[in-house]
């Protein structure tokens, strides 16, 4: 039997258990879409290819599976680049399938030709161009393996249309070989050394990052913390790895971290850093980061070790098996940390918590932090939260207590405005029965607002909560603090009318500027079936605090 390239590709995807693709058709992928027409694979038709990449990314974050998107050549492919870079920065496994002009036309400036493998080389973990029909099966196998193995990341496969249209006898297809699984289990000796160092600590801290979430090591981390009784902080990407409701939780550290997390980091004597890459939003001034600490750094990617922060002891390993070994070793009793050894430290950490808790002042207008606190209470902390980027994102990180991993879906490394709405769509596809809320600002929501149509037509009942301050709030805050309140081009007039816009897309739109109506409207919005846009007109010049000034040390915070 003869098989077309497009058939081989779809079969290969199904062998990788792909059941959903986020995509947008076009001239060079017509054959693939023709196959999809009769396929079991669900296709979510986005309204812009950037949305497809973000939705696939969030689908991966929520489900732990590889996200897949499919777009056409040229502009279709280049429109995914922001989404690919976003997944790359946050180590998210996605496979991006791009159409390409006929292989014999490549390099001739053909219509809708773009050198997408060249363009995405620095922002993919790896990419491929398929040059012959026989390579399709192996390439798909390898792409998924690369995307999900080790430190995950995006992989792009460029598909020249003539290869996809070509036919081959099924019997002539080469056998697909399984890629070699590399082991990411560290040696027990390394783990023993780490625990021995930790056991001597008087002021220990655990700093958990996105690697714990991506590495599905959250349970192991919780078990470990129970055994060692050490306070835990995390990066933005690590939120949910450790329950926010736990008394040992310090909140997020870094530029907008809590006072107590930043003070604890700045005074600790041993730091166990797990699945982190010491981003500059975490470390701020590198020389002054954790100045008294001996740092144990665990990460699956050897490149992150000693890249920014010199570790005293490092373990290249997957967080999950590493923490499993830690837990087994702790059970031997040889690495116990005597309670009296850390008692003063735990008291001091608690004192910092009481000294400057996270907070805000109530005012005559709706406070954005209050909306998120109320959302947390009404949803009992059980919603999947996606965010846009800026103040809305930081307030979500600070005021929604994440107890479970994979429930906070945010653009950490790249800081991509416009991520939240397509991300909510991807998360809702992964979890059709869960409440998914996009915490948005009035600026970034407009960067992918067209995806409202996707959510409505694909019956994905996401709730969009806009903290509308008529500003590009975070940039405005920097202008307020560092540019003498010269609000250059950050003032957004109150257009569009988000309620009318929601209605135009077939969604429900709600708005209030009255504090006394806030909770009732939020409750109504969350309980309204279908896609809902809630437009909260909030205090326009509210800032995100604490804030570590760029270049300052972490214990040097603006608190108000």
């Amino acid at each position: 039997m003869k098989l077309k390239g497009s058939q081989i590709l779809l079969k290969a995807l199904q062998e990788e258990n792909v059941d959903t693709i986020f995509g947008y058709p076009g001239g060079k992928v017509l054959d693939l879409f023709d196959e999809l027409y009769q396929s079991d694979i669900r296709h979510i038709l986005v309204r812009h290819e950037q949305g497809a990449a973000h939705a696939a990314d969030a689908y991966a974050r929520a489900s732990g599976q590889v996200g897949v998107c499919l777009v056409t050549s040229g502009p279709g492919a280049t429109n995914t680049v922001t989404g690919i870079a976003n997944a790359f920065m946050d180590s998210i496994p996605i496979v991006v399938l791009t159409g390409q002009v006929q292989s014999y036309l490549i390099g001739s400036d053909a219509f809708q030709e773009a050198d997408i493998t060249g363009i995405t080389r620095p922002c993919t973990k790896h990419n491929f161009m398929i040059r012959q029909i026989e390579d399709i099966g192996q390439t798909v196998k390898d792409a998924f393996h690369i995307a999900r193995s080790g430190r995950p990341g995006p992989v792009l496969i460029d598909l020249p249309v003539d290869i996809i249209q070509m036919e081959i006898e099924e019997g002539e297809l080469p056998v697909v070989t399984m890629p070699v699984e590399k082991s990411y289990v560290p040696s027990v000796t390394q783990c023993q050394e780490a625990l021995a160092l930790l056991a001597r600590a008087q002021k220990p801290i655990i700093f958990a990052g996105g690697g714990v979430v991506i590495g599905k090591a959250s349970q192991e981390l919780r078990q470990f913390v129970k055994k060692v009784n050490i306070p835990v902080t995390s990066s933005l990407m690590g939120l949910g790895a450790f329950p926010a409701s736990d008394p040992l939780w310090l909140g997020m550290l870094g530029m907008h971290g809590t006072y107590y997390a930043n003070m604890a980091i700045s005074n600790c004597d041993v730091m166990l850093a797990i699945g982190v890459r010491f981003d500059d939003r975490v470390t701020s001034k590198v020389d002054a980061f954790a100045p008294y600490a001996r740092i144990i750094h665990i990460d699956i990617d050897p490149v992150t070790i000693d890249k920014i922060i010199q570790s005293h002891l490092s373990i290249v390993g997957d967080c999950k098996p590493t923490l499993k070994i830690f837990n087994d070793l702790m059970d031997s009793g040889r690495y116990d940390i005597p309670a009296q050894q850390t008692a003063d430290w735990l008291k001091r950490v608690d004192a910092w918590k009481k000294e400057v808790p996270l907070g805000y002042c109530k005012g005559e207008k709706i406070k954005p932090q209050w909306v998120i606190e109320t959302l947390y209470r009404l949803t009992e902390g059980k919603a999947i939260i996606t965010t846009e980027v800026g103040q809305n994102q930081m307030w979500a990180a600070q005021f929604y207590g994440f107890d479970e991993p994979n429930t906070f879906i945010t653009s950490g490394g790249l800081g991509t405005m416009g991520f939240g709405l397509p991300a909510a769509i991807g998360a809702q596809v992964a979890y059709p029965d869960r409440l998914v809320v996009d915490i948005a600002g009035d600026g970034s929501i407009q960067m992918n607002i067209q995806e409202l149509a996707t959510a409505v037509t694909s019956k994905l009942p996401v709730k969009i909560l806009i903290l509308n301050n008529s500003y590009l709030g975070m940039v405005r805050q920097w202008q307020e603090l560092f540019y003498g309140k010269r609000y250059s081009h950050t003032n957004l007039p109150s257009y569009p009318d988000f309620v009318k816009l929601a209605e135009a897309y077939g969604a429900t739109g709600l708005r209030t500027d009255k504090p006394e109506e806030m909770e009732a409207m939020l409750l109504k919005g969350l309980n309204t079936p279908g896609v809902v846009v809630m437009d909260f007109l909030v205090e326009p010049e509210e800032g995100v605090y604490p804030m570590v000034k760029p270049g300052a040390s972490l214990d040097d915070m603006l608190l108000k």
Partner: protein
Amino acid sequence: MTKVKEKTVSILVNNKPDVLARIAGVFSLRSFNIESISANITKDPRMTKIILTTRGNQVNLDKIEKQINNLVDIVQVNDLTKIPSVRREMLLIRLKVSKENQKRVSQTIEKLEGKVLSKEGGSWIVEITGDADDIVNIIDQFEKFGMDDFTRTGTIALEQIHP
């Protein structure tokens, strides 16, 4: 203290069309110049060996080495600055040779164990090998004889014993 030093690395890669671009990308991202590069097939035709020299502080060079190691089509990276190895490069020189200087030129070539490859219209092409420092000295010497142009292969290297 970190010092600016030359580093020679031997990179064994899968013989794929874009692997060189990926390696170059790691260098350019960190603002490193590749001083010389040579690539050729190996005993196993599915693989290419790239010998690359660069200059920079050791800490950054080590980071680059780790990043290259992370690329998918990389089989092995060896830092030849840390392993006993023989490093050579080849130089081709084109000289104008006249009756007056012919004898001295020939003596110099002989002394340097060079080889004259062509003699066309008073222009000689001479082949000489040496390590990178030798090559610089040799170019200086031939400058005096009215050297017209030269080209260098860049360093190639091989570990003294199987790594």
